């Protein structure tokens, strides 16, 4: 029987960051709790935050359950995480700069050429182009899990357009509104500077041809997109325009947005659309989405696109295996955050091992997301395992496998009271002229008893995440 680390307790004692919450938890009358839970739900409904996290699909109007029991880190724990996250974000950007430039890491034989140059996410149009400040991925979402007091693992990196940060901000907002006392009793580091810091990061990568205060916009696919709420929320907080492709046009050397006062030049585009829909002249000639000519403006220094098209080559599950190697290769440092050991089913030896140990492993599709199309060996029936075995054998290169991690738990409100439930964490690291991280992130929680899958499409919820001041 696996023993899971409960972040609130160690050796039968309450761990220091949770000391004040113990009282709160023990003295809360159950009617009060139910009232507060209903209040939280009403608040979420009112602000309209009902989208699926991380583009998982599903019912866009479904409310993701919010758990009121916060997840807490000490300042010291966070300091180490922060160093590790920033280190990883720097290495990922160094990798992108390298593979779109000289490709030293491939020449040095530290990563197979095939994984880079034949990767679908690798964009020829970006080769040889150096974006402002040499940054390709400006918002890096790094998914972390914890297995012990000092053991953290990176589950995956998100270098394109990681979503969910609006939950981090709203969870905090709602907790502060409902439990102001908690925020007086605990010294919790604020996260509400995120939007200012995001704005500063985007402004710092204004293009060469921009003089003066850069005009920033958020480019969204539109209101039918599951994360549209987040796009408009961030635009509001930053005080920038939210635009769709049809609101932008290219003329001469620049991109303009249509406004009621006439065209206005745009300098930085924080795009929340996929590469394929940026510019039909460059990527998808059949697509009417996107802005014709945008890539030419980008490549001639007239506008910045965040993240850079092609940034996704750094974050697929096969490239993930090599991130610790990137840290050593580019930074000359040892990785502070560990990867989960990963077997590539495309390799004969790995495949053999994976097929032998299938009941113990988690198997994922290389390009999959959202917890779909994966096998959690220990939680599956023999029949499910066998049918997955057939799938792997059909296309081994499409699968990776990892050990089933003993994800930490945190106390969570459930129907019967309070019980431990498994959690993960996604912090949002900002990379511009400087590298920046707000103390916090989005904690997802698997609300089903025993479940290790935190995805909202599989019954996951969210929590406020606290980092205490030292």
């Amino acid at each position: 029987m696996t023993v899971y680390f409960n972040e609130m307790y160690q050796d039968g004692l309450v761990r220091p960051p949770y000391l004040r919450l113990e009282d709160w938890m023990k003295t809360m009358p159950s009617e009060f709790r139910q009232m507060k839970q209903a209040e939280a739900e009403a608040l979420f409904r009112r602000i309209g935050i009902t989208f699926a996290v991380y583009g998982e699909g599903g019912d866009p109007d479904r409310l993701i359950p919010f758990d009121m029991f916060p997840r807490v880190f000490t300042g010291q724990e966070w300091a180490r995480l922060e160093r590790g996250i920033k280190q990883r974000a720097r290495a990922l950007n160094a990798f992108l700069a390298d593979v779109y430039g000289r490709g030293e890491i491939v020449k040095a034989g530290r990563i197979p050429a095939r994984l880079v140059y034949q990767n679908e996410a690798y964009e020829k149009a970006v080769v040889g182009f150096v974006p402002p400040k040499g940054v390709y991925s400006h918002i890096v979402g790094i998914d972390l899990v914890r297995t012990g007091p000092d053991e953290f693992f990176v589950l995956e990196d998100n270098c394109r357009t990681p979503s969910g940060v609006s939950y981090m901000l709203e969870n905090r907002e709602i907790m502060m509104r409902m439990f102001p006392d908690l925020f007086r009793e605990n010294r919790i580091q604020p996260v509400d500077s995120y939007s200012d810091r995001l704005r500063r990061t985007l402004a710092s990568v204004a293009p060469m041809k921009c003089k003066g205060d850069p005009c920033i916009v958020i480019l969204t696919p539109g209101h039918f997109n599951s994360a549209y709420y987040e796009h408009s929320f961030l635009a509001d907080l930053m005080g920038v325009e939210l635009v769709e492709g049809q609101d932008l046009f290219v003329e001469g050397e620049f991109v303009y947005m249509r406004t009621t006062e006439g065209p206005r030049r745009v300098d930085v585009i924080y795009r929340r659309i996929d590469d394929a829909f940026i510019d039909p002249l460059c990527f998808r000639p059949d697509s009417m989405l996107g802005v014709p000519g945008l890539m030419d403006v980008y490549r001639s220094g007239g506008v910045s696109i965040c993240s850079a098209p092609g940034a996704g080559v750094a974050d697929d599950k096969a490239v993930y295996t090599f991130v610790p190697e990137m840290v050593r290769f580019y930074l000359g440092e040892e990785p502070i955050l560990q990867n989960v050991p990963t077997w590539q089913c495309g390799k004969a030896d790995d495949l053999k091992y994976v097929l032998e140990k299938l009941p113990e492993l988690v198997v994922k599709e290389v390009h999959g997301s959202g917890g779909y199309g994966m096998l959690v060996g220990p939680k599956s029936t023999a029949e499910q395992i066998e049918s997955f075995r057939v799938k792997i054998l059909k296309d081994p290169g499409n699968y990776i496998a990892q050990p089933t991690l003993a994800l930490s738990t945190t106390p969570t409100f459930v129907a019967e009271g309070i019980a431990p439930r498994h959690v993960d964490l996604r912090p949002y690291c900002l990379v511009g002229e400087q590298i920046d991280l707000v103390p916090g992130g989005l904690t997802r929680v698997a609300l089903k008893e025993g479940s290790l899958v935190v995805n909202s499409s599989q019954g996951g919820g969210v929590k406020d995440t606290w980092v205490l001041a030292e």
Partner: protein
Amino acid sequence: MRLTVDHVTRYTYDQPVRGVVQSHRLTPSSFEGQTVLDWRIDVSDGLAGGQFRCGAGDRIQSWSVQGPVTEITVRVRGTVETTDTAGVLKGHRETVKPALYLRDTPATQMDGALETLSAAAEGSANPLEAAHRLAAAVADAIAYRPGTTAAHTTAAEALALGEGVCQDHAHVLIAIARHREIPARYVAGYLFADAEGRAHEAAHAWAELWVPGLGWVGFDPANRCCPDARYIRLGSGFDAQDAAPIKGIARGPGQEKLDVTVAVLAAQQ
């Protein structure tokens, strides 16, 4: 050889369009095989956009035209001094890694017949011989006949038909080369057709295959040769659509009609 080019592309719309944006790969780069002496592009009512050299070494420039407009003319005029390098692309500055050109596109997807054709390379002593054999096999398999294929015809379709134009020859060669793990790409350019020559199409296309030790080597199955001093190279891509010298989008419901004339002449020495 000193070649002059006069290339006019006229777009007409049956009703006025609100605006047009184009991305041009219409300016040759200089390398050992060709030196650009003079070159100019005029776009009627056009506003020049940013220009840059892409990772594949091509000169790219965008243009925009403010509507309403019913006709746009793109005129390219210039002179290039060329030398014969037996098809080898020498001194061409580029950063894209050859391995990238192993990637398939819809136009170059394999089928059974292409696979059979690719067997022509079997038993070759070296990659260069394999490349030559593949190019010869394509020339044998597809007769030159204009009008039977269209811009969207794929390699597999052209091979099934057994006829086509330079674009089809290039697509088929690229498909089977990639299948044999030889990086291959599509090249667009101009070709000088002399009086007695059997060269086709002044606006021409061929393929380049990556040969270790030599680098990129051009093959023109349509003319059963490697590009020489009669060829002017404009730019490259994964396939015809990616390498297109002019890509454009018009805003508005107008139906577009295209009219192209290309003249490539040998300049008086």
